[in-house]
């Protein structure tokens, strides 16, 4: 609990209006959560929500801020690869085995047949980001549906769904991916994303289930029931918005996991035709003399993963300050 000392001062940011004509009076007294003490007798009462505290905490998290800025730069560069890339990523040129240089914009060098590796890396980022964002989306969707039903309905539904989840957890993901990729053919980002999404929803399902288990006991859920709302509405309108925080954290971290897995599969030759993983594989085949062919895409992956994890950390600390680790 010592880290509480580093919490922002929740009390005292408001001021009680004493001047006549002051219309609004802010009164705040934050305790562990967003509970507030208030005064009646005609006073207007306003307080900052838990969200604005979370936002403030996130923006104060330096690594997360660095991560988010860098990641935006990288992802935007990937998204606009077609416009930014100085060369066609697949066309050979006369500049063979150039090491990284500013001359001719070969920032990341070229390979043995003269393809520009900066351009290839940009396109690789594009493929990687498409896959990873799709995976995060698909896995969140499946995880939310399964976790919500499991936690909300409980009983045999919960048992069935959680045993299924356990099953997916013990499946050796990489082996399944390689086999599936082999038979389903490679080269399609959407198909690969579907595969990864189908394998990686379990963590989100567990998180959502846990949240639903506790949130369904809340009095506001009972109140919604008492006013005639059906199960579907209660699950997705009333409970789900309260679980967004942990879901966002898990989905962010999952994006990193998806990038790693996509790269691994592509590296092993079962993934995409042009992604960061494929580039590393090609570069490695070219031998150590052309060191930049492995290093440049490799560093890009490392940078992306680091950014994603910093953001995930920052989000977790911002959304759940009670569980934060002590940090200097």
């Amino acid at each position, binding site marked *: 609990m010592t880290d509480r000392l580093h919490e922002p001062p929740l009390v005292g940011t408001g001021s009680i209006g004493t001047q006549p004509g002051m219309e609004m009076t802010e009164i705040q007294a934050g305790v562990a959560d*967003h*509970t*507030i003490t*208030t*005064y*009646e*007798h*005609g006073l207007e*009462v*306003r*307080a900052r*929500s*838990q969200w604005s505290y979370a936002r403030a905490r996130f923006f104060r998290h330096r690594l997360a801020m660095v991560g988010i800025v860098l990641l935006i730069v990288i992802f935007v560069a990937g998204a606009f690869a077609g416009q930014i890339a100085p060369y066609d990523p697949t066309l050979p040129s006369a500049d063979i085995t150039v090491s990284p240089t500013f001359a001719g914009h070969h920032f990341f060098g070229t390979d043995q047949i003269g393809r520009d590796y900066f351009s290839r890396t940009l396109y690789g980022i594009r493929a990687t980001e498409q896959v990873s964002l799709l995976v995060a989306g698909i896995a969140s969707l499946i995880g939310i549906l399964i976790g919500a039903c499991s936690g909300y309905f409980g009983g045999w539904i919960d048992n069935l769904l959680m045993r299924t989840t356990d099953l997916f957890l013990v499946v050796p993901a990489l082996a399944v991916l390689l086999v599936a990729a082999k038979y389903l053919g490679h080269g399609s980002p959407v198909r690969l994303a579907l595969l990864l999404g189908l394998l990686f929803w379990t963590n989100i399902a567990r998180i959502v289930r846990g949240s639903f288990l506790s949130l369904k006991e*809340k*009095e*506001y859920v*009972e*109140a*919604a*029931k*008492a*006013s*005639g*709302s*059906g199960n579907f*509405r209660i699950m997705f*309108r*009333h409970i789900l*918005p*309260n679980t967004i925080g942990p879901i966002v954290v898990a989905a962010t971290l999952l994006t990193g996991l998806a990038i790693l897995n996509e790269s691994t599969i592509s590296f092993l030759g079962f993934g995409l035709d042009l992604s960061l993983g494929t580039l590393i594989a090609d570069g490695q085949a070219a031998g150590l003399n052309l060191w930049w062919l492995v290093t440049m895409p490799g560093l890009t992956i490392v940078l992306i993963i680091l950014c994603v994890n910093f953001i995930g950390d920052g989000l977790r600390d911002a959304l759940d300050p009670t569980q934060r680790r002590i940090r200097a």
Partner: protein
Amino acid sequence: MPEPLLSIRNLVVEFATEDGIVQAVDGVTYDVFPGEVLGIVGESGSGKSVSTMTLLGLIPQPPGKVVSGEAIFDGRDLLKLSKKAMRDVRGSEVAMVFQDPMTSLNPVLTIGYQLGEAIKVHHKDLKDGQVKQKVIDLLRLVGVPNPERRYEQYPHEFSGGMRQRAMIAMSISNSPKLLIADEPTTALDVTIQAQILEVLKEAQAETNAATILITHDLGLVAELADRVLVMYAGKVVENGDVHTIFSNPRHPYTIGLMESLPRVDVDEEWLRPIPGSPPSLINRPPGCPFHPRCFLSQGRERCRTDEPPLRPIDESRHKTACHFAEELRDHVIGSRREVAGTST
């Protein structure tokens, strides 16, 4: 005599817990008539909430179980409704106001959204604009200032009293025939309790809904209720018109409740909590559930062996569950002090 709006007969509700079966509600029978306010009083744990939550199918099952009984509301047995039919009743014909307004509103949805949903669930044909107008009118009715702006706000921007006003607005939004208010002021500041009481009165007058007011505050009952039901250990031990109950209580437990009230007209010494605590609801012993704490029993055999039935006394609308209720005929509230004082 008018037809009752709600007739509960012999309701038994149990909970399966680790320690055994808790008989939370044990053979409760009562009527609620159209437009009246029925106060239910009793110590905490006496089954007040469970007996009413059961009506809307809101007790968790399991561990809860409705063992027997019926609850005829407007010609239908609420305990036998399908899930769909029950959802149609909830919030439209029977509505609830919960105890703690700080927790009974969803923190991530606006007040306007939550009230609007309560209306839309039952009136799918209404347009969004109409719903919004209705919500704003309701908020104004319950005394929320600046309802147009408040509509857009989240619960954390409302104070406790304002939230309870919003909850009351929500409960009357579909003009229910029956309103259940479960300790509607208990969680609030004393200064605000009186205001909320006024709002409840107005809401009741506006909709003319029959109201079940659950409370352990006899003062609230005296102010609002037409009739009173006293519950103890999952049973109804006395019921009658509010004047009868207050002027001529015929159950030692009711008398105990009254004497434990702080009074302004008498010396502070009159404050007299009921000795002992409510019995365990697991493995109920035979006899009168109140006998270990009863001043009237004086160890009489019958109290320990025979359970007293709820029976009419003096007049048909006044009922009590005490073997020796007749002995209380001339009882004066507070008079036991001398007796107790001389015997110790």
